[in-house]
């Protein structure tokens, strides 16, 4: 039973074994961590996942290609359409489907809107973990506006099933660009408040600076990606390294921080929100108001036999998918490379030696979403 619980070490009777989760409110879902505690210090940590396992990859093998798209939505449920994109890109590559320029820009706009929504959820819940309740109420208020914009076009709020092979499923609502521009004005005002409440708060400084330091080498060795990796000083972003959709057309920067502590991860996510606002501002101007939203796709999606890996930079890092086709209308294998799953691998490294209350802050800075980790 050594995989499910920690064995007491002979001769160390002062160590206490404690279960954190799976129903702990600060684990952002159903993470269970078995902790060895020596007083308030964590000596050992063994994370257990799989409490939300829904057999996604196997289900997707039994569905035709268009049917897979709504299933991918249900992985990372706070960042909606971002999950659909790697699968759609991979199948488009295999079939050689041309995507109209306007469709690419609309896709990118939804992608960045969901990045803002996801980071707002992160900010609210991370502050909730540190004991502040009002930021949670404010961030969900702002996220509500994003979801309203998405619902007006896509018909659903969190699981929109909006991207399709060759573009998007339907044209945007006539008010879409105006709504986004209004929201960005609102969001820029709000970001000033959030900076004051979160980044400049001495309570947050005391809880996060120097806590859970992840070195550059360790981050690369463990295969973490996204804001967690960039907070350790590695400027890797799939949007720049392997550009997709409309990202070559827009200007943005990759914020990095050399510190690698919890505060750096908070800071990097904040800067990413500014970059998202910047990208969206450019796209509101660049995207034609009318035009094609969907390219020509065959009625029956039957990619030739072969395999293709495509990755996107979602709110948590590199979300990739490997699609293996055997020439039929159903994929032979769909393997998702989850960003939150890979980021969770550093939990034992970061927890060991930390205080118990710091463990909560470290976990909040990793921003795990268990729909994607357990799949």
């Amino acid at each position, binding site marked *: 039973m050594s995989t499910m619980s920690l064995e007491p070490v002979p001769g160390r009777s002062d160590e206490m074994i404690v279960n954190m989760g799976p129903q702990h409110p600060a684990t952002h879902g159903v993470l269970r961590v078995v902790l060895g505690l020596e007083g308030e210090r964590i000596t050992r940590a063994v994370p257990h996942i799989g409490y939300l396992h829904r057999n996604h990859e196997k289900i997707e093998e039994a*569905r035709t290609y268009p049917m897979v*798209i709504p299933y991918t939505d249900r992985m990372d449920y706070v960042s909606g359409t971002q999950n659909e994109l790697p699968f759609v890109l991979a199948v488009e590559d295999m079939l050689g489907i041309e995507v109209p320029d306007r469709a690419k820009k609309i896709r990118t706009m939804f992608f960045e809107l969901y990045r803002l929504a996801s980071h707002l959820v992160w900010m609210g819940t991370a502050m909730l973990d540190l004991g502040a309740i*009002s930021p949670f109420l404010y961030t969900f208020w702002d996220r509500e506006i994003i979801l309203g914009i998405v619902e007006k076009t*896509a*018909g659903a709020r969190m699981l929109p099933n909006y991207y399709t092979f060759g573009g998007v499923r339907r044209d945007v609502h006539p008010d879409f660009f105006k709504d986004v521009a209004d929201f960005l004005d609102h969001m820029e005002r709000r970001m000033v408040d959030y900076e004051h409440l979160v980044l400049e708060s001495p309570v947050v400084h005391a809880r996060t600076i120097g806590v859970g330091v992840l070195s550059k080498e360790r981050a690369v060795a463990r295969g973490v990606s996204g804001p967690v990796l960039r907070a350790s000083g590695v400027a890797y972003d799939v949007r720049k390294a392997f550009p997709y959709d409309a990202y070559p057309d827009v200007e943005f920067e990759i914020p990095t921080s050399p510190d690698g502590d919890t505060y750096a991860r908070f800071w990097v996510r904040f800067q990413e929100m500014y970059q998202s606002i910047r990208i969206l501002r450019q796209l509101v101007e660049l995207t034609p108001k009318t035009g094609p939203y969907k390219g020509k796709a065959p009625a029956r999606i039957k990619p030739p036999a072969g395999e293709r890996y495509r990755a996107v930079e979602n709110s948590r890092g590199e979300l990739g998918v490997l699609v293996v086709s055997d020439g039929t209308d159903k994929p032979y294998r769909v393997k998702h490379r989850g960003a939150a799953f890979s980021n969770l691998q550093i939990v034992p490294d970061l927890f060991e030696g930390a205080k118990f209350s710091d463990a909560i802050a470290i976990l909040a800075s990793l921003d795990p979403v268990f729909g994607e980790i357990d799949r």
Partner: protein
Amino acid sequence: MSLLQEVWQAVKAIGTGMATVHKRVYEEAPTEFYPYVKPDLPPVSVQSLALVENEDGSERCIVCLQCERACPAQVITIERHRNPEGKGFLIDRFDIDLVNCMYCAACVEACPVSSIVTIQDFEMSTYDLQTLKADVDFLHEQARRARQWYSPKFGVEVRTEDGRIEKAPPEMQPGGLAEILKPAEEVDS
């Protein structure tokens, strides 16, 4: 950092927080007084499914099984028989398991005659899940009840005089497309 500085930092942080709270007090609240005030959902909002009849009360569904084939959750069950008089098929059974449905609207997109549509009726909570195993009568009733319905299938086509097939004008499109497009024309003018 001296004690005095720390105290000042704490006071400043509390002041910032209180100032933010004070600012929000006078903003319009984002909450809604449901169930006293119903939310104003956009027409495309996918909340439930309905099966539309023609205006004269006849069946619009041609039982082509496209929705059954397109459904990712495989909750649609259709049985049919050949129409003894005339052509086409008649419905024996048209069931949608709304419990396991994931409201992706793939069936709506697949429907060639826009018979199956999404509606905005979201008040489906029940103590008995069996009431959500919708049959054809329930789905027709849903469509009658829906105050406004819409289908993302824009593609109803008409044959023009010279024989070409073109997209039908918005008035002929099912699903209130004319109403959807109305704001666009207002913006242009």
